């Protein structure tokens, strides 16, 4: 947080920050000391295998325990330059912490890997950037989109001695970390601080408010740069295919979260007072439901057409929603959006569902939920710019990638949510960006491995 921001805090913004305090507070040094002693320093550690970015978890925990936070953070950043935000937003309960062997013994309590990672990355002190760039290769690479995949790719490319131009459609970098993650998960302007940290390696130029298909074209980028990495994310919200869906109180959750995250004043937000319905079952649905409760919406009902087991939000996320007193209705599919004569949303009608031979069927029971706003969180879709002439192969609505994140176009790589690999997790995007960078460098230059070793051990 820079100084100017902190002095200009309004009462409203203080209230907002208060409302969105960190859901998972940091460990104290003492807690980190005790927690780090719990790691068994496993052979062929299951947590590393479960980490999409392959962080050497036992090693960084051992460094924490030996009071070497610098070493711990460096171990994390070697594999994942966004280790700070991943420590906060990773669903560790289905990744490293699920794999922790301590789940299986008498204690049945995994090491708090996420919180330890946060302890290291929050408290490590570096003079300048932790890594030094390799000697210049003279190569220039274009990265489209400054989200986790793009930033990770740009950083790794720069580390290996390449110059990178990043083109970002918004006026800030960070992607979903800046615009999409629930406010209580990434607090205190963390996303921008992390962007500054990543860019401090040098060799990366970010061009803001520069969108593919509007200000730049892939064709031109291919011509001007030695390689291109596409990490354009997902722009569209899936539709409910119901009448009145275009009503102004039928809101795309991601748009609302973006507005909330950028707001400096509560008055800028249109907050439903009495009741809201959230449609969806992913982490975005949980995020918006919980944030509405925090903003003061009295009744928030999250409705999903299948059961809790099928929800893509993890059990941990579902519990967060329950803790926020969000009402969760499962096995219910939307039938209509109800609007009064003045065009005001009054509620939604649902039909109970059930499974028959693995197929979802509508039952006889119908019910209404009164609400003044409806938040859609039924998934995001990629919208590849219409104006583009050069389009990589799209498969299942996303950019198809092959070995090492290469697309169907030679010299064009892709990663992050716009590709069809993984579960669209931040940590996966970081890994894909990293792998693409290594592949690009390998293609353009020789022996990445040697260079990588030199750069990382600096």
């Amino acid at each position, binding site marked *: 947080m820079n100084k100017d921001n902190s002095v200009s805090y309004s009462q409203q913004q203080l209230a907002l920050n208060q409302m969105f305090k960190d859901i998972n507070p940091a460990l104290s040094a003492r807690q980190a000391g005790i927690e780090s002693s719990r790691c*068994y320093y496993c052979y*062929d550690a*299951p947590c590393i295998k479960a980490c999409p970015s392959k962080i050497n978890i036992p090693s960084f925990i051992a460094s924490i325990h030996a009071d070497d936070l610098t070493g711990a953070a460096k171990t994390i950043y070697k594999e994942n330059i966004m280790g700070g935000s991943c420590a906060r937003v990773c669903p560790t309960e289905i990744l490293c912490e699920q794999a922790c*062997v301590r789940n299986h013994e008498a204690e049945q309590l995994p090491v708090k890997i996420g919180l330890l990672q946060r302890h290291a990355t929050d408290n490590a002190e570096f003079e300048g950037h932790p890594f030094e760039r390799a000697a210049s290769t003279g190569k220039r690479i274009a990265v489209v989109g400054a989200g986790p995949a793009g930033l990770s790719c740009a950083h790794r490319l720069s580390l290996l001695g390449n110059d990178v131009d990043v083109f970002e459609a918004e006026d800030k970098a960070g992607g979903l970390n800046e615009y999409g993650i629930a406010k209580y998960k990434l607090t205190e302007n963390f996303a921008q601080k992390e962007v500054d940290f990543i860019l401090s390696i040098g060799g990366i130029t970010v061009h803001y408010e520069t969108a593919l298909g509007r200000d730049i074209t892939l064709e031109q980028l291919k011509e001007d740069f030695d390689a291109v990495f596409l990490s354009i994310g997902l722009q569209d919200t899936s539709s409910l295919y119901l009448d009145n869906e275009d009503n102004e109180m039928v809101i795309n959750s991601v748009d609302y979260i973006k507005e909330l995250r950028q707001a400096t004043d509560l008055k800028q937000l249109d907050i439903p007072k009495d009741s809201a319905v959230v449609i969806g079952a992913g982490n975005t649905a949980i995020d918006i439901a919980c944030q509405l409760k925090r903003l003061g919406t009295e009744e928030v009902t999250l409705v999903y057409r299948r059961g809790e087991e099928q929800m893509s939000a993890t059990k941990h996320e579902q519990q967060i929603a329950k803790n926020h007193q969000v009402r969760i209705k499962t096995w219910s599919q939307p039938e209509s959006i109800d609007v009064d004569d003045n065009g005001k949303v009054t509620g939604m009608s649902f039909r109970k569902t059930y499974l028959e031979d693995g197929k979802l069927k509508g039952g006889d029971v119908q019910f209404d939920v009164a609400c003044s706003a409806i938040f859609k969180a039924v998934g995001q879709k990629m919208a590849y710019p219409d104006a583009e002439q050069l389009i990589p192969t799209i498969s299942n609505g996303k950019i198809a990638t092959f070995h090492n994140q290469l697309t169907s176009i030679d010299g064009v790589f892709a990663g992050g949510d716009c590709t069809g690999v993984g579960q669209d997790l931040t940590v996966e995007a970081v890994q894909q960006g990293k792998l693409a960078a290594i592949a690009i460098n390998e293609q353009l230059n020789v022996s990445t491995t040697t260079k990588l070793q030199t750069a990382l051990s600096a």
Partner: protein
Amino acid sequence: MADLSIDFVGIKSPNPFWLASAPPTDKAYNVERAYEAGWGGVVWKTLGEDPAAVNVSSRYSALYDHNGDVSGFNNIELITDRSLEINLREITEVKKRWPDRALVVSLMMPCEEQVWKRILKLVEATGADGVELNFGCPHGMPERGMGAAVGQVPEYVEMVTRWCKQHSKMPVIVKLTPNITDVRLPARAAKSGGADAVSLINTINSITGIDLDAMAARPMVDGKSTHGGYCGPAVKPIALSMTSEIARDPETAGLPISGIGGIGNWKDAAEFIALGAGSVQVCTAAMIYGFNIVEEMKEGLSNWMDSKGYENINDFKGLAVPNTTDWKKLNMNYKVVATIDEDKCIGCGRCYQACEDTSHQAITVTSNDDGTNTFGIIDDNCVGCNLCEITCPVDDCITMDERSEGQPYMNWMEDVRNPHREEA
């Protein structure tokens, strides 16, 4: 309910738990709080000649375990820094008020017979149950020719012990220093001098660590430090070993022992008693947790004794002594091999890493389709070292099973592989 009372060289005590001569027994106030909490006895903090010692500020430091608990403790405090007159008066009063508890007085004097003679008369007059000769203090006092400086020379130990027996009717316990190559020598000397008992161990020369910013050890006195005396849980193995050495030395066998060194709970105490101790002394645990710990110590020891059918302390005293022997008498035909219980294994692989890197390559690793590993033992490679069992964090997952092949007992002296074996 087991009887915890003891008669240690004529000193009666309702339980074997005494507070060792140290800061907790420095004055009447502390000692009476200890008796109120239930301690069976105390050894009063060492008295010396007037003028009383003067202590520095900043006196203790510690070694911590993974959880931040104290595992080793270090001090540079000297003997009592109060006058002889005050200490003797308080001892008299306390003994009068607590006649059923043991009260032993620790002494440290220069090696002059008349000095010892004089102090012994004064202590006798207090009604104290006995004296403990502090021949062990490793810091500060040896620079003045006392403490460990005496304990490290068996002839001095014998000489001073003899004076004490000559000039006093009180039981004399000689407290031994571990800062010596062979603890049996001063123990034998004490016995020759007529000692009624020995107590051990006193603290070990130590530096618990270096403050890497200040480039000095703690405790730090104006930027400088000095070695201290080490005690607490970390020294228990050393104390047990030395206790066993004296208990099984034919020359000192049967000499009463008061066990000291890292005792913090009933199990520790039972271990010292099993190796022959007739009473145990505690300091560090009380300094960290307070006097109330004696309650759980008494309760735990009593419950365990009941579960084993031991009616009094003598019933199990020394039972582990015959099973503590020389390496050359161990059975060369005995064989254990590790077994891994796959149902209990959590897949941490510590056993594999340890055996593969540092031991006998006796553990296999098999990758499963789900990304986990399964570990197994190669019986032929396993030497039964216990390392895997030690690294395993799960109770009873790795066990060392006996695989002796029916051959009779044969020790190294009888083993044909021993080029120096003693021919029958």
